[in-house]
């Protein structure tokens, strides 16, 4: 495939792996966090871990928008989805995320009209085709997907579509990063910055990380060579004693982001005072709700929802796993109360989460040997 295979060249990959090896000091441990779930997926898909020296460890960050949705929000969505007049729509990978009692997939099997969509515009199309039903879109994602929800709502308003509502769970990337960095036991040496979030917000919002916390961040693309080059750039900064925001993904990310996307977001959304993250707890000003101007599209105002916070069991230590303080198996609920079939924390929800990978692949996840 043109424009794709170029970024997956194994020869160039080996060359970058060699450069990375020459940049690390033997005996020093490097913990780098890839913030974005998309990076985690690529790292896993291409086996990038395998190409890194043993003392460079990748820590999967809080940037999987599906995994950070807490059970209480899933329950709220469920309460709306189970209204008879509602057609409930969400992205495919949201279908399996557990609420306190069930997932949307289970609710669908129980008779709720729940449909998978690829874009909020698909949900709007369903609303137009079913004027006698109420179509609710369960909006999730970071700044990557928020603009498309905002544009869809603008279009719904322009076309006078009244049977389309939105449950807004959009979150923002900077507050959880700050929360991680604020923690006194944080053990991370650098960050692979999110590529597509940055295409919207730009590189500027990450300047506080080197400035206030002394950690380098390199915004990277999602192809395997992008990620390896991003890692190489972070390690070069550490080796040279530099600490700054750099942009590996310059073919997509402008320093100031995408002003049109930011404008539509600020028209349609406003910050929530606080929002709960699965495994991380409440983080202030970390999520978006519909602005007053768009309140008539807000499903949470139209329907009663339990709005109950379903507490993660106290023993859940996702926060510590994410900060690199403990290994998955050191968590008190790992493998007992928290399993892939009944996940408690974000690290177990996503199959690529650190805990799920460790649970599923056990010794192989540690030793990576085939004989």
């Amino acid at each position, binding site marked *: 495939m043109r424009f794709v295979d170029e970024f*997956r060249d194994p020869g160039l990959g080996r060359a970058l792996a060699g450069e990375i090896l020459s940049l690390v000091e033997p005996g020093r441990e490097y913990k780098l966090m890839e913030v*974005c779930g*998309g990076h985690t997926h690529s790292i896993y898909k*291409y086996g990038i871990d395998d190409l890194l020296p043993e003392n460079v460890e990748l820590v999967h960050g809080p940037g999987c928008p599906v995994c950070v949705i807490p059970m209480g929000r899933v329950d709220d969505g469920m309460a709306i989805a189970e209204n008879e007049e509602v057609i409930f729509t969400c992205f495919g*990978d949201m279908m399996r995320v557990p609420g306190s009692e069930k997932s949307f*997939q289970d609710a669908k099997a129980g008779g709720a009209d729940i449909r998978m969509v690829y874009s909020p515009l698909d949900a709007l199309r369903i609303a137009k085709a079913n004027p006698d039903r109420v179509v609710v879109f369960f909006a999730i994602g970071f700044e990557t997907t928020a603009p498309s929800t905002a544009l869809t709502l603008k279009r719904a308003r322009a076309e006078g579509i009244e049977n389309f509502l939105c449950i807004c769970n959009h979150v923002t990337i900077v507050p959880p990063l700050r929360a991680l960095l604020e923690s006194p036991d944080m053990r991370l040496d650098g960050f692979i910055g999110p590529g597509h979030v940055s295409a919207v917000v730009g590189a500027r919002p990450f300047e506080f990380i080197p400035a206030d916390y002394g950690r380098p961040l390199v915004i990277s693309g999602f192809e395997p060579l992008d990620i390896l080059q991003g890692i190489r750039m972070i390690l070069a900064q550490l080796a040279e004693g530099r600490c700054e925001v750099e942009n590996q993904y310059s073919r997509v990310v402008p320093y100031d982001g995408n002003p049109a996307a930011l404008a539509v977001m600020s028209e349609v959304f406003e910050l929530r005072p606080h929002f709960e993250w699965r495994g991380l707890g409440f983080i202030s000003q970390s999520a978006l709700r519909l602005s007053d101007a768009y309140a008539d599209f807000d499903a949470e105002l139209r329907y009663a929802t339990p709005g109950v916070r379903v507490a993660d069991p106290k023993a859940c230590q996702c926060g510590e796993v994410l900060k690199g303080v403990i290994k998955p198996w050191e968590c008190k609920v790992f493998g007992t109360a928290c399993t*892939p079939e009944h996940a408690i924390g974000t690290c177990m929800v996503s199959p690529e989460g650190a805990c799920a990978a460790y649970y599923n692949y056990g*010794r192989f996840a540690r030793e*990576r040997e*085939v004989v």
Partner: protein
Amino acid sequence: MSTSSDAPVSDREQRILDIIEKTRARRPKFKSPNVTMAHGAGGKATQTLIEGLLVPAFDPDEAGLAVLADSGGVKIDETGIAMTTDSFVVKPIRFPGGSIGELAVNGTVNDLAVAGAKPVAITIALILEEGLPTEVLRAEVDAIASAAVAAGVEIVAGDTKVVERGHADQMYITTTGIGAIDPRASLSPRALRPGDQVIVSGSIGEHGTAIMLAREEFELDAEIESDTQPLWEAADALLGAAGPDLRCVRDATRGGVATVLNELARASGVAIIAREGDVPVRADVRGAAEILGIDPMYVANEGRLVAFVAPESAGAALEALRSVPGSEGAAAIGEVKTEPIGMVLVETAFGGKRVMDLLAGDPLPRIC
């Protein structure tokens, strides 16, 4: 941290790994309050349905069904007979490269073929939705008839039922087939040995991709046709070339090649490593899968088999397969290993390694 990868495994970690391995090895229990679409997708949920609910009821001694082969074997007066059954609910019923009628014949004859049995006869049961246009029915009946001729099987019995509008989606077909077990065949999902070679009979992922595109849920156009075809000739060629060195054959339908590899790694207590770069995938299938966020290794095929052959006969098996029309694109894609037991690994084209597990449920597209 105490556990860099060269440090010894601590006692506590060892204990937790043991608990997990024991839990995973246990027969799954079916705990779901309802059947969900995931139970039909061929991944972990399907496995739980079969092993947790059906096997305990139908085969408590785990002698027949529990082997989980594509066909069951029975002996009648010392003649080995293979028998299998399959239902077809594909939507849309016509798609590029085939239709539900053709699929219903090929699906069942292929389950016989990969069990080393020459398909002999099938039965057809039709469940029709009230209001189905006769021309649609006639077209499928014709498709069934010509597929049966092409596969060399007789249609010896049948049944029809009509259900009210809305109680079925146009038409469903169930076929049951019997075949004569070939004397050269000694196939078993438990027969894999380290060193065995893994061969696929052609490019993968075409049927599932053709169906996804034919549903027109995505604004994607590509001329991808289903690979549906009968596989007895291919199985016959493999038996001729490898004889007793042919350990096991599977058709890579629901859940794709990845699911076949996982089921057999578990059944035989071995590891399998697949080489991603050697797996034949057409460029347009790769492109569609890339856009949809789906791995072709998990996409259904209807005319592709996966064969496991002892290393001494692997070359001959591959050559024989390539001489069969429809299987010219056969390729060796991997090898059976000793450890980690029950796991499938992929050597990625980029040069890394990863685990290729059973899917948890439907292959759901990712947003990120």
